């Protein structure tokens, strides 16, 4: 019998061996889809712990990367028991690194955490022109648009992208979150986003709040 809060803590501790052992046993015990969903939730709560420890300055970006990997491995292990109808998708996100910027580490951490949280993520990739964001938003009608950037020029690109969405009449239909090194409250206001973060786990929490 899996102890959910033990699993949550093991994820929070980034104890890969323990997590994978617990999940292997759980899958072997032929659980119901509901039980499996509870386990997925426990994993996500574990990611919440990771995000908190990052915020506190006990975990660092390298640990977030490992956490993202651990979460992906955990979800993959659970796939056979999560079921055909699969966890109800909680929302859709269009994600990308803005034009002029080729960095993707933070974006990728966010993506794996968001997917584990039940979001469908359309990842455009890096160095994405405004038009790509606009077209994708038109195509999939997401709840959220996430923009990432590490270089200082990314702020201007984020503003361009949001202006592009406004011009296309799409701004009001989505919530926008920005992430990366240079993002601050001032940057968030300047570009016209709804939220900002430099912590992927916190970013996912914000998105979950929006789609509830």
């Amino acid at each position, binding site marked *: 019998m899996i102890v959910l809060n033990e699993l949550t803590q093991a994820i929070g501790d*980034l104890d*890969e061996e323990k997590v994978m052992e617990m999940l292997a046993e759980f899958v072997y015990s032929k659980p119901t889809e509901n039980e499996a969903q509870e386990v997925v939730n426990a994993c996500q709560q574990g990611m919440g712990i990771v995000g908190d420890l990052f915020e506190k300055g*006990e*975990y*660092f*970006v*390298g*640990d977030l*990367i*490992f956490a993202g*990997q651990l979460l992906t491995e955990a979800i993959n292990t659970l796939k056979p028991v999560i079921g055909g109808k699969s966890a109800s998708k909680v929302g859709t996100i269009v994600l990308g690194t803005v*034009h*002029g*910027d*080729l*960095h*993707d*580490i933070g974006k*990728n951490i966010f993506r794996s955490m968001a997917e584990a949280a039940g979001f469908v993520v359309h990842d455009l990739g*890096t*160095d994405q*022109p405004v038009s790509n964001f606009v077209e994708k938003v038109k195509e999939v009608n997401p709840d959220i648009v996430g923009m990432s950037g590490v*270089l*200082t*020029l990314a702020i201007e690109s984020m503003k361009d992208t949001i202006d592009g969405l406004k011009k296309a009449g799409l701004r009001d239909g989505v919530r926008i979150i920005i992430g990366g090194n240079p993002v601050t409250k001032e940057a968030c206001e300047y570009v016209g986003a709804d939220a900002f973060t430099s912590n992927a786990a916190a970013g996912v929490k914000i998105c979950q709040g929006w789609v509830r």
Partner: protein
Amino acid sequence: MDHANKVMIEQSQQRNQNFIDIYEGRMPKKIPIAINIDGAAALEYAGKNLILDQYSADEMIEAMDYTNGLFDTDLVVGFSSRLPSYYKILGARNYVMGGDGFMQHPNINGIEPEDYDELINDPVKVCWEKVIPKFYSELAKPAPYNMIALLKMYVSMKNVMAKIGPAAAHIAAKYGKVTQKFYSKRTRAPFDLLADTFRSFTGISIDIRKYPQKVLEACEALLPLVLKMGIPAEKPSKTIRVGIALHMPTFMREKDFAKFWWPTYKRMVEYITEAGFGVYMFCEDDWMRYLDYLKELPAGCEMQFEYGEPKIIKQKLGDKHIIEGLFPISLLRTGSIQEVERKTKELIDILAPGGNYIFNLDKGILRASDAKVENLQTLLKCIREYGVY
């Protein structure tokens, strides 16, 4: 010899001497200025086309000349060695021109975890056989395609540098900049080389948890390589600095830093120092939690800090090491002239007393938009007037 020439020659000598004095442990007459400006920024300041003009040594030289005239830096600035011609010829995946012309460095790993044993056994072999084909699609092709691509790239580099070298010397003399070569070769901490070249940022972050013993052995195996990369050919002198950009530590927990990153780095710095050279390290991001480690390094290391508390850094390290950095480039981008002057004097007041101080920004100026012309000019003027011992 005309008067202007003599004036510039003397200015060069004075500026050289400020650096020499610092490196040899004396108080300089004035604070040396190590501010650098990237080639892309120089092209933009000179009104050139970033997408087209990096293919022309002549255009880049014009931009260098213009930028060195525009900004009264100590060092000759405005050249980038990573040019698109090389990387196009090689079919590079590790250096790619962004949509606006700026050369970027995507996260790509040279090897997989199963290659660790081979890496530990012979890192240079793994570079040629695995990393090179992974980074460069043309070099992954069979002979003769790969040999043609490599030779073309080498000739491209030779052609460019044959012009840049003399041009840089001419510019140094013309504007009375530093004419002595203080910064020699560049190298990496073994762990950073393992991360940046072989496993990538993402990969190494996972490896320290999944394969810790391999990571430790790989760092040992890379120590001879990073030393050969760094040890200069010149006669040993403290005025010759080996450049090391420190990458991974601030993204790691301290216990991982202490176990994996620090030991081989410390040995590397000790070796270079014992060989009679100096070290210049760029402590990127925020090193405040690691200051006690830096204190352990052999005396006279030149340390550029990006973020941190100037007073604490000076107090903890200022007697033993040469401090530089901490001036926020963001102020050059969005601040007023008055704010720039105020911050300059504030930093000089904290960091300059007692010497062991070189003025620098928190990071390099990569694009013209990073620093407004009048702000950078004001900054340089202020250092020259206020930074006198």
